[in-house]
């Protein structure tokens, strides 16, 4: 796997995203972990409502995540606090219980009072330590969650200053050049101050109609990101927009038109152009082809493939059309009701699906082959009947290198037997 040598670009660890529904809590994403390597296409599949889109949106910080960590280029960009709060709660409850037991024993045997008192002190001390530790973590998480971009821009500013110090030294004697350099320095400083780490991850949304502002021209839509970033050079923007339009297969003339004048496939191209112009390292494509016709689907997939090869992009591809995902992705993660149930290389996953849900999902793919279709039997997945998680709790386990399944001990054994027989 050559792309694995390039290192991890995005790392999602124990991501949880809960939504409040009145008194209840909806666990949209529950303890999902995966790594995305540089230059690969990672596919997320699952039925609607299983939390794939929420995962994508949490990564790009459209939601404040409830718990877990997200690392992008080894820097924490998102962090949740719930796990620490739960740890504090647990520790408190634990300590309370212990102290209660000790108190009871003191009442029964008064001679042990001194010993017990010491024990209680110790427990309290330990509790205070854990609380302090966790609270520190919470502050750190909150700081990272809020200020990850600040750190990034601070670094950029420092780099910028270093770079221009040299240049200023060189052109010290030429007032004209010095002024030019100063102007350039100011421009770049502004951009550096405003740039964010998160903008290196861009998103392509599902519905090309709803995600474009109907009152902006294509030029305005595409260049909006650059302007917010602080670029003021209009000629530069114009040139960039034209280049990008050409890259995604549109022409210059389209720049002055409005979104409603385009067909569905072209609108999706505009969406792609808008995200590519920010020169991102990673693109989260949230069902970019499911609203499109078959022939246009192929065009968009080919375009994404070309962009990936040209720009070396990493793509997190969210979709429910399995044949497209299979075609496009290097690795695939299967999600079911907020949990990641299976994760493997795409060929491996389709050759040896292990988890019953993956099997049922694969059995539902329609193919353009009447004889096959007439024989195809859909496997239904019933989680209550399949699994018994009452005692033996499931976790993510690695069956063979690179192939993870969500299972408990008994199931792991069973899967392994099936796998190697």
């Amino acid at each position, binding site marked *: 796997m050559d792309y694995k040598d390039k290192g991890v670009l995005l790392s999602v660890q124990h991501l949880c995203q809960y939504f409040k529904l009145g008194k209840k809590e909806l666990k949209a994403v529950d303890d999902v972990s995966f790594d995305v390597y540089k230059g690969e296409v990672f596919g997320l599949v699952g039925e609607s409502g299983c939390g794939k889109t929420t995962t994508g949106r949490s990564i790009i910080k459209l939601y404040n995540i409830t718990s877990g960590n997200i690392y992008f280029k080894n820097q924490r960009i998102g962090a949740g606090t719930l796990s620490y709060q739960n740890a504090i709660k647990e520790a408190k409850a634990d300590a309370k219980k212990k102290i209660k037991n000790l108190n009871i024993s003191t009442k029964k045997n008064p001679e042990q009072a001194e010993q017990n008192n010491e024990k209680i002190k110790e427990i309290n001390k330990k509790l205070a330590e854990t609380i302090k530790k966790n609270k520190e973590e919470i502050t750190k998480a909150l700081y990272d969650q809020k200020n990850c971009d600040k750190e990034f821009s601070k670094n950029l500013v420092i780099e910028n200053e270093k770079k221009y110090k040299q240049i200023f030294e060189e052109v010290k004697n030429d007032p004209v050049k010095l002024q030019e350099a100063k102007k350039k320095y100011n421009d770049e400083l502004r951009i550096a101050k405003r740039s964010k780490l998160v903008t290196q991850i861009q998103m392509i949304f599902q519905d090309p109609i709803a995600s474009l502002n109907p009152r902006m021209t294509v030029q305005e839509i595409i260049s909006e990101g650059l302007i917010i970033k602080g670029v003021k050079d209009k000629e530069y923007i114009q040139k960039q927009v034209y280049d990008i339009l050409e890259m995604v297969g549109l022409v210059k003339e389209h720049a002055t038109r409005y979104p409603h004048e385009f067909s569905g496939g072209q609108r999706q191209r505009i969406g792609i152009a808008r995200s590519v112009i920010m020169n991102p390292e990673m693109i989260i494509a949230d069902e970019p082809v499911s609203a499109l016709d078959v022939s246009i689907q192929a065009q968009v997939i080919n375009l994404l493939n070309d962009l990936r090869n040209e720009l070396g992009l990493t793509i997190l591809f969210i979709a429910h059309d399995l044949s497209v995902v299979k075609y496009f992705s290097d690795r695939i993660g299967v999600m079911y009701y907020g949990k990641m149930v299976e994760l493997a290389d795409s060929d491996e996953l389709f050759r040896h699906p292990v988890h019953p849900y993956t099997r049922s999902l694969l059995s539902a793919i329609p193919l353009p082959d*009447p004889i096959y279709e007439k024989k195809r039997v859909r496997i239904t997945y019933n989680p209550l009947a399949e699994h018994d998680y009452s005692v033996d709790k499931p976790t993510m386990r690695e069956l063979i290198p690179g192939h993870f399944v969500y299972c408990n001990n008994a199931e792991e054994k069973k899967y392994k037997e099936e796998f190697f027989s």
Partner: protein
Amino acid sequence: MEDNILEVKKLKISFRTNNGTVKAVRDISFDLHRGETLAIVGESGSGKSVTSRAVLGISAGNSIMDGGEILFDGKDLLKVGEEDMCKIRGDKISMIFQDPLSSLDPIVKIGQQIIEALVLKNRESRKNSRKEFNNMLAILKRNMIESSDVSKKAQINKIIKTFNDFNIEAIKLEESYNFSHARCEEIIASINDFLFKASKKQRLDIPAFIKIYLSKLEDIKDPYFTYGYKEELNKHKRILNEIKIKNRHKFSIKTGFKKVFKDVDLATRVPKEVNEELKEFNSVLEKMLTEAKPNFFRIGYYVYKNPNSKIVDKPIEEINDYCYSYLNEHFLNVFLDFEHNAIKNSYNKALEGKKKVVDNLETLRAFFQKGNLKKRSAGNEIKGVSSLVYESIDHLAIIKDSVAYTFATALKSNIKKYFYNESHNAKEEVRFARQTKKRDALIAKGKKIDWKVEPKKTVSLDDQIENIVSSIDRLEGKYKEDIAGKDNIDFAKMSISLIDYFKEKASGAVYKVTNVIARERAIKLMEEVGIPEPRIRYNQYPFEFSGGMRQRIVIAIALAANPDILICDEPTTALDVTIQSQILELIKKIKEERNLSVIFITHDLGVVANMADRIAVMYAGKIVEYGTSEEIFYSPAHPYTWALLSSMPDLDTKEKLEAIPGTPPNMIYPPVGDAFASRNKYALKIDFEKQPPLFKISETHYAATWLLHPNAPKIEMPKVILERINRMKERAGEDNGL
């Protein structure tokens, strides 16, 4: 010959827009066999939805029907009025729309939306059945009199009167039976509700419920319905009365005060024995429903002849048999003789008429083909032929001859269109000349002009004449076929089926569906389409359902009125894979159970492979390929089908996808030649100049591409598809080997 339930012939539809007329559907023809699935595949904008909407008569307001016919049950759906269309829509043909959310009413409860069609349809059919019964009887009488001697006229009158009278008697008996039947269904529905609530541990007002049951039980007294169950019913009545007394509210001043002023209901937990008893009662009632229905057509005659007889006290089968022999002996044999003669007479008369019409059509066609029509002469020509055609229709035939019934109106409207366009073209010419003159004059003066002369919107008169001639051709073909097949007619079978028709209409007149029964049916239907806990779901609003569930509701609504044709317009495009396959399985299952004919519209070829018996591939308003699903997938012939197949990845695809370059053509100015030529890498020179006709590949497989012309160069289909087909065949071979 296959039994066609729906025929679409040379349909042309265009839309008036600000930029010009968009030609959405350009001359397509297909037919739908009974009990099959026809899939229409194409990109968006290829006119597949437009076609299906035209079938249902819900085209957009700016649409123009340029020509063609949609024949269904003796009617041309393009020309029936809104009133008649209402009876067809939902009842005979219904539709599942693409977006389940926007096709449900957000402020009406789900259950209400499902039973709406059931109740409305029932009301309408009750009204019509009686009317149709009388009409057919009048026609039969006329034919009977014509077919026999004058001396027998009195006898015929008497027979017909007897037939009518004993049918009225039968209807009366059946109405009483139906009333009891309906009450029984209502009690079952109510008990089911009660038991469901009890199972959810709700507190219920037991005496109030039992009071309802008892009062409804009072109404179940039809002797035919209760035969053999009287004692059991009486027993349950007694037990229910006991329960009612036992559970009676113990009124004290305190509880009375509470009830009156604080509105506290007197509901209690349901005791076990009440539950058991109601279950037992329910099972008895359900058993009663499954009993065979007596044949009131036979009994009606017996009762009519012997009004005081005690026939009721025998088992139903015995009654049926006895009345059957009685009826045959005393009446039906004579009646059948007359009827047989009448049908023969009517058929022969129609045949004579048809021969005459065929002779006349030749001159009529020559007249229209000459062109240059005059209003008066054209009117005279068609007047004679129309009356001839009307005479040539066999009115006693139950399966209506669509072509003959619609011929006169179709011809008339086509001729009307011809004259309208004639005058309109002249006006356009004048306008164009005037504007050009004005513009030229202004330019000559040296002024700057910022407006253009609007292009001429003329319609070719030759096309109109072609429309007229094609409808004449169709009639001629149909009639010649009929004349050729005259020896194969089974008159005995026809007379039996005519009597069946009378029976059906008579019982249709008294078949009543009340709201309570409709509710129970709707709940059954919801169960059938796979909605869990339908009794709770029945009272919910559409927004409380998920996408897949909503689509199921839409299917349930479409099926509520038991249609003959179901049109599915991209029913699964908005759903994900697992739900999609569930819904497809559901549609397939229901289709097989109810022998539905399905038109399935989609752009996803993968979906089609499982569903369709035959596939029509549409592009730019035309059908480019047409064949069974095996033919389309294993030996596609049109470059567009190739492109569609190669642009979707399957599980073994590794190489770059072959996307179709460009976009579909602008249908305001449809291309002269093959519409797909500009996106087609296999396009020949002729593709840009002339439209290819449908070439026949096999008995069922047609494709419109010049590549199939004998003079065309041999072009193999793309390698990707060849490989895929080979792979599929290998896989199929492997499976067969196992």
